[in-house]
């Protein structure tokens, strides 16, 4: 018998919801995530057309598109490294398609879905709250929509995606998720008082 899936922040649903209206926070669990190492431009393009999304060519950005696997995001993690993110349960077919696109080129496609969970943050204070623990400049002029940075938030490694003017997605390692949720709750305190 297979054990039921329990997301890293399953026990935090109510506490995160209570941060509204200062910040709307919710976990987006179990998303399909594949770490792709590839440098050949032809293989990168082939992977992009297989998924219906052009892989990002600019460091510290992400791209989004729609294709055979629905909405897919591709995150730049390094000069030859990407993270492909899609809806839950698609990691096996996406891995097959990406390996097919890689062909004989040197590279790798690895299912890392269990490594991280995702937090969706939204609200007028989202950049202010994150600035309490993040040294990256999150002003809209420096971090516009489309930015994807790997950095430290309250000393925890995160991937931060700016998905809207007041919207951010955080990818955090599953074992650090509860610590980050606790830190977020604390960082929101002063914004809840005035809300």
């Amino acid at each position, binding site marked *: 018998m297979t054990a039921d899936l329990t997301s890293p922040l399953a026990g935090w649903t109510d506490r995160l919801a209570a941060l509204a209206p200062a910040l709307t926070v919710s976990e987006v669990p179990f998303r399909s995530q594949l770490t792709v190492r590839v440098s050949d431009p032809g293989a990168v393009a082939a992977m992009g057309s297989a998924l219906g999304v052009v892989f990002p060519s600019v*460091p*510290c950005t992400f791209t989004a598109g729609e294709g055979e696997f629905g909405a897919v995001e591709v995150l730049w993690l390094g*000069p030859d490294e990407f993270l492909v993110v899609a809806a839950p349960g698609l990691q096996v077919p996406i891995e097959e398609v990406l390996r097919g696109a890689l062909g004989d080129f040197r590279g790798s496609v690895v299912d890392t879905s269990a490594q991280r969970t995702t937090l969706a943050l939204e609200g007028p204070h989202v950049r202010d709250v994150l600035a309490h623990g993040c*040294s*990256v400049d999150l002003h809209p002029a420096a971090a516009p929509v489309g930015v994807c*940075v*790997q*950095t*430290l938030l309250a000393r925890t490694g995160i991937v931060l995606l700016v998905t809207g003017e007041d919207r951010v997605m955080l990818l955090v390692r599953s074992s650090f998720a509860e610590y980050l949720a606790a830190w977020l709750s604390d960082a929101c305190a002063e914004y809840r008082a005035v809300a």
Partner: protein
Amino acid sequence: MQLIPCPWCGPREEAEFHYGGQAHVAYPEDPSALTDEEWAQYVFFRDNPSGPFAERWSHSAGCRRWFNAVRDTRSHDLLAVYRAGEPMPEVAS
């Protein structure tokens, strides 16, 4: 807080980086031909200048790439950063 300019990610906080020692220390072409003293020189002995010093750094909490930087050891100013494999740029000291 010192900012270190990663050649890929741009300026980031020093806490995101790990230090990797002197840059451009080539692995011996024929290690077995080295005497014990020469091997010890390769493994343990490094320059210790007062002034510009080419070093390896890793952006370990970011893009996790190794790169090289020229740092002035007197002021801790980073005079130049460049990607692995690129030649060391000229710097004014």
